[in-house]
């Protein structure tokens, strides 16, 4: 677990090496094995046989974090508090033992792992592309608990440390050096050890800043007027941004404020108390469950059919070089794939390449790629107007307009030139894939890949399995999506698949509430207060009201007599047909859009829709908006449209911006409490109709 090596100059190197795992983490086990090692070091020091200690790891990474398995199960405040206080004790022993400790950061150091590094006296990291450094706990609803928050504030000062902690920003090695998280960079492991030893031999004054008598944190304390203003404004910004749905950033900010007021020890204890509070809170449980465990389940391939070798495409084809096609092209070339970008003319295809170039330039400016990468990425793109150029492709994606005939036509054209092993993917948000696959001569290779715009920002891809799609094709689509660094969920081939269907339910409930005479601004507010990224009317505008109408028209066609329009549908018809408010793409929907893109609720709404004197409580609107999505998701599970809770939860947040602090549509039930959820669903059903009805109340998740 911990390898102990001592050299001739009495410098000990401790190498962390946890068994049977790719990365080291901080857990009870490593804590236990640390203590005897530290006790031994103390004895060595007493004998005068210890000059310093180097901490490093045998893995590719340094230490990637804490024991989420344990923490996610934790239920008792006392246990969590004493766990984290013990961890602090170990870190304190390191920094107060009396010899220099150097963190030789050979790779990624995150969370608890970086906290350990902060407790040493000097941090040297290897500058390699996959090194990530930071304290991203907040993204899982937690905060540093090993004293890392307190130490970082001492070292960087309040104003510099705050964004790193409240936003959980992680940095690459160079950025970490620039921000002062790292003291020195080296190029490889040999230099790392060499420099660590040199530093130890040349630095004997190793008292930490917070242990010096009368010491103050770096920069101004919390009582300074400018810091008071800063903290007040940060609290406001965070509350405004999160609707106070996420306790972690505020807990972090408050602890930061205490660091600027109190001594190291008191502030550390406050850090432990807040840590405990967050760990035991439901939001943290939701976030960990979805964004750690569910997410890892998806990444590990739980929805990928078993028994097929890994698909390693080299060249892919994209039909249609509009925003969607270019977006797919961009992420594909970024992942090292050769991209054949086709449109009706070479001029239009080149325009698509231009879009890709713009995106690459933004990446360059953001420091995510280097000049050479940009050129290489561009060189991998072949523009064409001829389907013949798809002949060596391993996968072709069509991203043409949402029009069945057009899609059928490109399918047929393309299949003439691709081999029997090539995957053909259709990027559609609404048309059932099985119906499109009818145009294909190889329906077993035909699959739906539903990307979301803008592709470079939206991390989800729905893989739609049509009637005849082979398992192997699904597996290959899955591997491709992972290769381009998107999150794949596998969904069934029903109207709207998963994402569009539930987003639609949310939108339609919003319209239903609006048509009842509730104020539009209150509906939008309730949606966001409930944690949704966008209000339902805003989302309707983004989607395009005419497109939503098309979906329902098709549904009416397909279902015939079985079709009953949803309560919001009348309003939708009027919006589209009577008032010609088609949505954001026409700069006129539920909102007006000015030249700068600022939107204002369409003032005429209040005249055109008769207001109800009785305005519902915000909570009632929130529950309607949220429950309709959850109940519709339960139906998707029953119908096999989504198959795993992981896909449902992760998909909901990444797909249409479902409330992240609830952990997704199915985790919402755990958060609400199953019994309470059933009672409330029944109440809503009685009040608002059977769209809130659960088919199998006893069988929910």
């Amino acid at each position, binding site marked *: 677990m911990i390898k102990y090596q001592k050299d001739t100059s009495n410098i000990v190197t401790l190498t962390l090496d946890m068994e049977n795992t790719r990365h080291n983490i901080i857990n009870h086990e490593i804590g236990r094995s640390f203590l005897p090692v530290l006790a031994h070091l103390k004895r060595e020091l007493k004998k005068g046989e210890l000059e310093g200690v180097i901490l490093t790891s045998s893995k590719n990474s340094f230490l990637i974090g804490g024991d989420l398995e344990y923490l996610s199960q934790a239920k008792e*405040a*006392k246990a969590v*508090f004493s766990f984290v206080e013990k961890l602090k004790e170990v870190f304190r022993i390191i920094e107060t033992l009396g010899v220099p400790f150097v963190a030789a950061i050979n790779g990624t150091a995150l969370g608890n792992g970086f906290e350990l590094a902060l407790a040493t006296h000097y941090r040297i990291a290897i500058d390699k592309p996959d090194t990530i450094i930071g304290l991203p706990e907040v993204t899982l609803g937690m905060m540093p608990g090993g004293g890392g928050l307190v130490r970082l504030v001492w070292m960087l000062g309040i104003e510099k440390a705050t964004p790193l902690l409240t936003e959980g920003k992680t940095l690459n090695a160079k950025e970490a050096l620039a921000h002062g998280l790292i003291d020195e960079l080296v190029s490889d492991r040999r230099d790392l050890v060499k420099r660590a030893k040199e530093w130890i031999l040349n630095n004997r004054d190793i008292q930490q800043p917070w242990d010096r008598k009368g010491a103050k944190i770096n920069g101004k304390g919390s009582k300074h007027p400018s810091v008071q203003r800063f903290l007040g404004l940060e609290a406001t910004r965070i509350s405004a941004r999160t609707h106070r749905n996420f306790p972690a950033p505020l807990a972090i900010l408050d602890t930061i404020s205490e660091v600027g007021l109190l001594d190291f020890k*008191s502030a550390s*204890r406050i850090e432990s108390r807040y840590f405990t*509070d967050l760990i035991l809170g439901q939001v943290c449980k939701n976030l960990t469950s979805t964004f750690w465990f569910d997410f890892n389940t998806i990444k590990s391939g739980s929805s990928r059919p078993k028994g097929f070798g890994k698909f390693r495409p080299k060249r892919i084809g994209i039909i249609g070089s509009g925003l969607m096609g270019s977006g797919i092209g961009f992420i594909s070339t970024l992942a090292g794939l050769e991209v054949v970008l086709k449109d009706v003319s070479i001029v239009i295809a080149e325009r698509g390449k231009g879009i890709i170039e713009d995106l690459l330039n933004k990446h360059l400016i953001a420091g995510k790629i280097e000049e050479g990468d940009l050129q290489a990425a561009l060189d991998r793109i072949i523009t064409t107007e001829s389907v013949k150029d798809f002949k060596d492709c391993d996968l072709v994606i069509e991203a043409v307009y949402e029009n069945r005939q057009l899609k059928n036509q490109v399918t047929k054209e393309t299949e003439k030139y691709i081999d029997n092993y090539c995957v053909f993917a259709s990027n559609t948000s609404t048309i059932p894939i099985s119906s499109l696959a009818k145009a294909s001569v190889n329906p077993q290779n035909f699959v739906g890949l539903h990307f979301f715009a803008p592709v470079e920002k939206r991390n989800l891809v729905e893989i739609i399995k049509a009637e005849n799609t082979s398992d192997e094709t699904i597996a290959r689509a899955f591997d491709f999506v992972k290769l381009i660094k998107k999150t794949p969920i596998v969904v069934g081939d029903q109207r709207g698949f998963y994402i569009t269907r539930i987003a639609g339910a949310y939108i339609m409930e919003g319209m239903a509430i609006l048509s009842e005479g509730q104020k539009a601004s209150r509906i939008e507010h309730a949606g966001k207060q409930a944690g949704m990224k966008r209000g339902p009317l805003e989302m309707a505008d983004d989607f395009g009201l005419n497109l939503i109408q098309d979906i329902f028209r098709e549904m009416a066609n397909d279902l015939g007599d079985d079709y009953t329009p949803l309560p919001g549908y009348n309003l939708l018809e009027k919006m589209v047909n009577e008032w010609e408010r088609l949505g954001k793409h026409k700069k006129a929907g539920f909102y007006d859009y000015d030249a700068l893109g600022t939107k204002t609720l369409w003032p005429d709404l209040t005249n055109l829709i008769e207001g109800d004197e009785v305005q519902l409580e915000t909570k009632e609107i929130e529950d309607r908006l949220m429950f309709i999505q959850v109940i519709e998701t339960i139906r998707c599970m029953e119908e096999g449209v989504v198959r795993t809770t992981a896909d449902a939860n992760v998909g909901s947040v990444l797909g249409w911006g479902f409330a992240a602090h609830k952990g997704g549509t199915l985790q919402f039930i755990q958060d609400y409490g199953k019994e309470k959820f059933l009672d409330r669903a029944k109440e809503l059903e009685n009040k608002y109709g059977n769209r809130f009805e659960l088919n199998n109340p006893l069988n929910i998740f």
Partner: protein
Amino acid sequence: MNEAYIFDAIRSPRGKGKQGGALHEVKPVRLLSTLLNALKDRHQIPTQEVDDVLIGCVSPVGEQGADIAKTALLFAGWDDQVPGTQLNRFCASGLEAVNLAAMKIRSGWEHLVIAGGVESMSRVPIGSDGGAMMFDPEVSSKVAYVPQGIGADLIATKEGYTRQMLDEYALLSQQRAANAWEKGYFQSSIIPILDRNGLLILDKDEHLRPETTLEGLGSLRAVFQQIGALGYDDLALQKYGEVERILHMHTAGNSSGIVDGAALVLIGSEQAGKTLNLKPKARIRAIANIGSEPTIMLEGPTPASKKALKIAGMEAQDIDLWEMNEAFAAPVLKFQNDLGIDIEKLNVNGGAIAMGHPLGATGAMLLGTVLDELERQDLNTGLITLCVGGGMGVTTIIERI
């Protein structure tokens, strides 16, 4: 006339008012809101029924600034309708709040008022709020301001108290406080301070030194010697020609301790008691405020208490138990002497020398202490008084129902 009844009096334990003290990590606003909610829960008070909340706080700046009473109400989640205000009558602020609350009730305009105080001396140190009396050259020289400790030493010198007498009194305070804690006399009124997870932070007064001995006390340094030599002694003596030289006798052992703490008293009319099913424990018979000579500063309790006794139509012998704040030993002995009080009736469970003096909260704490003790001994009347900065005295007389 509407009587002002006391329904309850609670307090936090007192933590050492410095880095390392248990309550150092607790914000004053949290301390206060913890007590507010404890009071609410003890009596199932519908918060909107509370007409006002008066909170004494002596250093109302920084995290104790900007009306900590209203801030704590909002933070505690009380009904928006409940107003609150912070007030400052220096060391008597907590009792001043009680007295003003009593007056509000007796006016008939309000029916349920919470009075009390808070001071986190470890987080907002004494003197943080500045003030012209101490720091404006024109003002401080004209009023001949000297630090309270000089005044206390001047009282001791003037009255002929010896160091031994002061230390003996201090020892008595320690022994009485230790005894009261050991026998659980304070228990029912102490609200333990928990962290946000429900884990205990403090449930006992932390400043106590039950192991104190006279020898130990005798070995302590007189703390105001040096400051006095800067000129304060001479300035004080300009007013007290009868004293040749101030003998500095007050030490950290026979002066009040610096601590963090908060206290609340629930005061209301008979009507409020009936409506909300609150049982009156005592009524407030009289209150009095008075000013006294500001340089010696700490002699206000005698005239204030005489005034209150007169208002109540009582004599000193009508008082069963006395609480005079142990800011320093000498003013207590002076007060005892002035009113001829049997030491067995004065500060019977110890005071600020043993347990500390959280400036803004102390007055309300003393009221609770004497009320609990009256109930325990089944006695009737109690008088609470404090010496006050600037030369003032504040007194409250209560009587059990």
